[in-house]
């Protein structure tokens, strides 16, 4: 049975999430969606299903201190899968103040959810006009951007070209990987929002055109969230790098929001891909290096208070 793709929509209050949802739901696209929201209000929708929920977060008793999940989602996704009429996609809107981690971790932790659905992307709507102020006075706005697989930079008509460039630079500092789509009133092709396969290990490279060139930026800003990118041109020792990543995420996983990487492991013809959300990591040998392909390893961490020199040292010690 095929898994239904799920898109998580985050964004600070007033950024335009509801506008985007309304667009998705009212556009003629011939698809059938289930939308899980908090307080949507009354709108007439024929084909799609709106499910209202209270975000209910709890901590898993699995020894992982940051492993919080959304129990309401586990129940709702289970219920949706019981329906005869299936959905082409599921959209989950989080509240403006929400930390995206619990919703994302839900898709890694619950076996029934994993069996029937797959996370497609975390899409964050950002208000070009107000985001710099929100980054000053809240933590959530930075977290939502750092967590994103793609960013819809909305209300671009309300700022000047200079301001827009400044906003984009700031977003890049927080998240060097996520593509940015500029929009006004959230006007964007649905195909660009959905079907991203952002959590598909085999597409980690293909997906992010910037992945290869992603670089740690200057840290001259007042947020504590930043990214660190590590590269090695020599092959890595498979056991060492696995152990290093496992220990690192076990120790620092609370402050490392997202990590992704492609690894060139010594004596292996396949390249290894991994990704993690806080401490929850998945990785696998994924496909053979092509003959004409340059072999390398690259890891990008996005998180809070990252100690770049220490990460560099740890990574360098994994070279075979």
């Amino acid at each position, binding site marked *: 049975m095929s898994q239904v793709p799920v898109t998580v929509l985050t964004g600070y209050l007033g950024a335009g999430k509801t506008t985007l949802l309304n667009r998705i739901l009212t556009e003629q696209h011939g698809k059938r969606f289930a939308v899980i929201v908090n307080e949507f209000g009354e709108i007439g929708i024929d084909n799609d*299903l709106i*499910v*209202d929920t*209270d975000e*209910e977060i*709890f*901590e*898993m*008793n*699995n020894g992982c201190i940051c492993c919080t*999940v959304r*129990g*309401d989602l*586990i*129940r*709702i996704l289970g*219920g949706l*899968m*019981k*329906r*005869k*009429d299936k959905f082409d996609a599921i959209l989950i809107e989080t509240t403006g103040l929400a930390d995206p981690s619990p919703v994302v971790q839900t898709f890694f932790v*619950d*076996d*029934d959810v994993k069996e029937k659905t797959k996370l497609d992307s975390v899409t964050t709507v950002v208000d070009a006009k107000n985001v710099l102020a929100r980054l000053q006075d809240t933590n959530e706005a930075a977290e939502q951007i750092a967590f994103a697989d793609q960013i819809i930079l909305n209300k671009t008509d309300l700022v000047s070209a200079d301001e827009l460039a400044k906003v984009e630079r700031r977003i890049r500092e927080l998240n060097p990987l996520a593509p940015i789509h500029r929009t006004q009133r959230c006007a964007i092709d649905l195909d660009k929002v959905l079907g991203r396969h952002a959590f598909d290990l085999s597409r980690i490279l293909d997906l992010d055109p910037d992945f290869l060139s992603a670089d740690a930026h200057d840290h001259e800003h007042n947020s504590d969230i930043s990214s660190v990118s590590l590269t090695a041109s020599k092959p890595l020792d498979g056991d060492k790098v696995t152990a290093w990543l496992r220990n690192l995420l076990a120790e620092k996983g609370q402050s490392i929001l997202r990590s992704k990487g492609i690894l060139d492991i010594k004596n292996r013809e396949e390249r290894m891909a991994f990704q993690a959300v806080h401490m929850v990591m998945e990785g696998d040998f994924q496909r053979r290096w092509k003959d004409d392909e340059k072999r390398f390893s690259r890891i990008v961490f996005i998180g809070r208070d990252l100690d770049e020199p220490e990460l560099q040292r740890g990574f360098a010690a994994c070279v075979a």
Partner: protein
Amino acid sequence: MSEPRLRDGRSWNFNAPVVACTFDGEGVAAFALGDGTLRTISPSAHAPQTNELHKGAILSLAAHHTGGFLTGGDDGRVVHTSQTEPPREIASVKGRWIENVTTSAETDLVAYTASKTATILHGSQATTLTHPSTAAGVCFDPKGRRIAVAHYDGASLWWVKATDQQPKMLQWKGSHLGVTWSPDGRFLVTTMQENALHGWRLDDAADMRMSGYPSKVKSFAWDRRGKMLFTSGSTRVIGWSFTGRNGPMGREPMEMGPEREDFVQVVATHPKADMIAAGTADGAVWLESIGDPGAEFLLLDGGKITALAFSPDGSHLALGTEDGYAALAPV
């Protein structure tokens, strides 16, 4: 995909996931489906009857103690269907799902859950109990005097008749999903989001942790004597003994049935004999007598089994799958 191989009996393809099945006191079988219909078949009938009850999926099903069936749907409605009268809506909660319905014959009560509330119906009189998080599971005690509701961080016990009361909280960290009261009234057991059961001895609220499962426990059933609790969640059926003061504490659980590759999804216990039935994710349904190893397969290659129930006289087993296959098999 291979065809289901049913050893004996009658089968149907309902083209919608079978969410639950049960029998009423008259031996009428009912299959609740993901298309909102309830298919009922009396022992003498040739074909099932289709009752169109809910707009979306049926999420919960229980036999009503006065006859017929109660269903709860994702349309927020609770409906009573009987063989003699047209289906009747007995409750409705706007915009919420009815994920549980249950009854107590002893005190003539019905209860259902919607979001954080559990509501007890006595005739047309309704009492709504509110919890700190979603009421994930509900059950009456064997005498119908109390009701237990599972939620985050434990379960709440309420008296069904009292007004203006504070519940007794049984606390244990984590998300508690299903709940069952031991037939002797001494223990309360919940299924959890983690691969474990949690139990409390009610006279002193002592905790009992029953863990070691390789997957989430979704189904449980007490044997006819009310001393053993059989559960899904592993490659075989796991049974915990609730005899003695300490119940299952300090004892190894019993394992029953064949070792399958896939996990047991549903269990049911025979009402008149020491026998259990189990349905697995790889589409097998088997019977085995307690204390007499050697399983008898009723179905193979059926698709993921989602529902099982013995008829009240124990002569038939009703079964249903995720793909909409359903059968009545002689035991």
